[in-house]
């Protein structure tokens, strides 16, 4: 059993280290700032509940685990009936509310990624934004490595980027 004070300190450390990237991942996935904040909170509440499982693991394993919880939380949100009523144009408004000095190119990339189908968006976020390997992504999404590779290729096509020498790790 981990004592309450250690749990609290560890959670604080996790929020400090991964809070921003988890919040941004949830926003990119859900396209709604308020929902993303809720999903980020849910993610850390779940991590807090199951902290016992991650005692003594290294930082990268913890990060992968928290990202996995975040992705699953976002999937749950997407599945909920309520989400189906969310106005998807809200993403653009929300983006403008906190984006101060982004180039038009950066905005285009972000919006293009946000408009990808969920399965493609997941792999792009994990591979590009969280710098995970394909094997790690396969573990996070419970799919096999080839599926990850296929989805990345499809995402490339949809984002209209040209892969440079098959940059797969």
């Amino acid at each position, binding site marked *: 059993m981990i004592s309450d004070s250690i749990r609290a300190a560890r959670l604080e450390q996790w929020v400090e280290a991964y809070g921003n990237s988890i919040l941004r991942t949830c926003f990119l996935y859900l396209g709604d700032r308020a929902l993303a904040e809720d999903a980020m909170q849910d993610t850390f509440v779940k991590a807090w509940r199951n902290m016992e499982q991650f005692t003594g693991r290294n930082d990268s394993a913890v990060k992968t685990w928290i990202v996995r919880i975040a992705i699953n939380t976002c999937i749950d949100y997407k599945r909920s009936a309520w989400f189906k009523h969310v106005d998807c144009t809200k993403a653009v408004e929300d983006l403008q509310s906190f984006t101060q000095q982004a180039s038009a190119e950066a905005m285009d*990339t972000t919006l293009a990624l946000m408009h990808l189908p969920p399965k493609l968006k997941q792999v792009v976020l994990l591979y590009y934004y969280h710098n995970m390997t394909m094997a790690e992504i396969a573990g996070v999404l419970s799919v096999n490595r080839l599926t990850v590779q296929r989805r990345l290729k499809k995402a490339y096509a949809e984002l209209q980027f040209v892969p440079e020498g098959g940059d797969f790790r």
Partner: protein
Amino acid sequence: MKEQNIIKVHLEETLAGLEVTPAMQKNLINRIAREYNRYKVRGLRVSKHRKLGLVLTIALLLIAASALAWSLAPSIRTWLEQRMDTNVAPTIQEIQATPVASAEIGDITILVWEAMADEKNFLSNVEFVIRNDAKLVAYSGMKQDLPAPLDDSTVYVGVSSWYGNTDQEIFTSVQESENRVSILSEGWHRGVTDEPMTLVCTTVFVENGQPITETTTISAPVYLAETLETAVLDEPLIFPLTGFELTELHMLRTELRVYWSYTATGKNQPFEYAIRNLELRILDADGEQLPQKLSYGSTIPERLEVRIVDTDTGEVLESIQLTLENGLYTVQ
């Protein structure tokens, strides 16, 4: 610059203003505090409507069960009587001898023995059986949990279950023998549904130390666990010295597990006790404090002790013993 850097740079540039604020952190801490108190102070919350629903359901169940028991064939009646004697929740495995779902990956057969849910939780019991000489070893299903180095003569197996809009799960226990591995996992769901449980089974074969992962998804019908037994407090317990009152105590046993909750107040505390750090604790017959949730397959405790303890000194200021009779906890 490579694609991945461009994408990351663009995303960082656009999302730079989206940060976890101190207010968000405070909200998170408050939520966790609420979550913690829910289990620490009240256990499982049961609303008034749910209580009424529970009472009515139990009454109907009892009437239906007694009518059914007498009309059933004698062998089944004997089985029911045996179950009542041992006071142990039957598991699906005891009731049926065939798996609820199965699949094959190479030389491995995957058998789903249990896929159960009650109001709050779900549980899956999956067995892997291998037909060659390789050794089976269970792991969480996540790559980073694989041991290093990997053994070529071992196949690593894992399960991830999804039910009721969630895959939040706890990897509870594993039983391994020479060519079989059973993995029992459980988790919380967000509401009972008619949808089957999805079990993502992962097998990792090893070739020259390198893992080759294969995944198969099994859809298993879910057995909805029924409520078997309840117990409540006969009348509120008053602790005259410290002014505490235990107003409600509920025990609920479904086929899946036992839940418990209580409500206590300290509003009539005399000043000298109100300023001390007192806590109401509930202990079983062995003097062990009840856990947040009693584990799968456990029974409703027949004896309880309710203590008022000074948490700073450990001193027990008051204590009342309770015994269970006909679903009611009464003062011994």
